[in-house]
């Protein structure tokens, strides 16, 4: 295989790159929050892990009074209240699903940026799949019909075939003339 040599080089380069990157990242570094060192700034959240969970969930919840922002992004009073609710409940040991249920019970599915799968959202969730299958079916249909047309062409008389071939070759030459570079690759 002619491509092997450059490929091997690339592979090495990519792996080196990955190592460099991992060094640059320095691994998952956690801020040292030891209160003993007064030179170290304290974290805003008493519990950074809880805060991370809170914010992750908050990014998936919609602020009802905002122009399409999550409660993590917004500083509207309601967003702050709901963020506090999320934090308190997670701190009290509730699961993320519990918190989501709590908010949906009060504000409805509107608060969820990820709409739940249910009767009214079937089309939303399956729509892309249906579109994809539809598109693939259409593609298959078109390609098959093209092949049939091509087969019909092949069934022509020998003279016709010769003429067709001449035409096709002429067409290919024409394409090359018009400098369509891809046609040569």
């Amino acid at each position: 295989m002619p491509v092997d040599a450059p490929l091997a080089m690339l592979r090495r380069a990519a792996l080196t790159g990955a190592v460099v990157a991992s060094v640059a990242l320095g691994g998952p570094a956690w801020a040292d929050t030891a209160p003993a060192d007064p030179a170290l700034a304290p974290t805003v959240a008493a519990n950074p892990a809880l805060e991370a969970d809170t914010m992750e969930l908050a990014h998936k919840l919609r602020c009802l009074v905002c122009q399409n922002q999550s409660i993590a992004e917004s500083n509207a009073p309601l967003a702050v209240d709901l963020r506090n609710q999320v934090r308190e409940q997670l701190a009290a040991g509730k699961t993320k699903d519990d918190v989501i249920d709590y908010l949906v019970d009060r504000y409805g599915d509107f608060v969820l940026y990820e709409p739940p799968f249910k009767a009214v959202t079937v089309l939303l969730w399956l729509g892309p799949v249906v579109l994809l299958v539809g598109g693939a079916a259409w593609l298959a249909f078109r390609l098959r019909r093209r092949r049939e047309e091509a087969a019909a062409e092949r069934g022509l008389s020998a003279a016709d075939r010769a003429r067709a071939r001449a035409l096709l070759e002429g067409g290919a030459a024409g394409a090359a003339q018009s400098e369509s570079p891809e046609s040569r690759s």
Partner: protein
Amino acid sequence: MKAKFLVPLLLFFGLAGFLAFGLTLNPREVPSPLIDKPAPDFSLARLDKPEQTFALKEMQGQVWMLNVWASWCVACRQEHPLLVQMAKQKIVPVVGLNYKEVRGDGAINARGMALEAETAMAIERARRWLSDHGDPYVLSVLDIDGRVGIDFGVYGVPETFLIDRDGRIRYKHIGPITPEALKDVLIPRIEELRRAG
């Protein structure tokens, strides 16, 4: 013209129909999932007698309304005369839920304020506002931190909940009550609930 080439056009007309209908809708108004569910229970200090609390069950057996208000809420001022008028005509008992009276006011920095001080300030402000604009409420309760508001799914002030004799929320009005909404929606519903017994 083959029928299949009309498909894009028909799809587009369908879409345009929805968009036209969309123009008549208000994307900011979110329906409450609490409709026809029992109103969330709560127990909050009364504005008139802060040492006493008010609980949902005290309204058991009555059709009544819970109106969310605050003195800093501009739109409340708009609906307030209507509430006062309703109270005069004794249309329906209305309980006021005074929502985040102090910390909801953008003009006040309530951070770090002790709860007692905040409550005292809330009572003072709320009472003064009611004496200035009239008090249409059977009573008002103080939701200092807005927690009960969250339980009711409140996302703006004012909001009004219509609650039946069994303590179930039957209707929610978002934004200031207008005379039309009162006449065409609220009063018929109140009467219907009363008839239902």
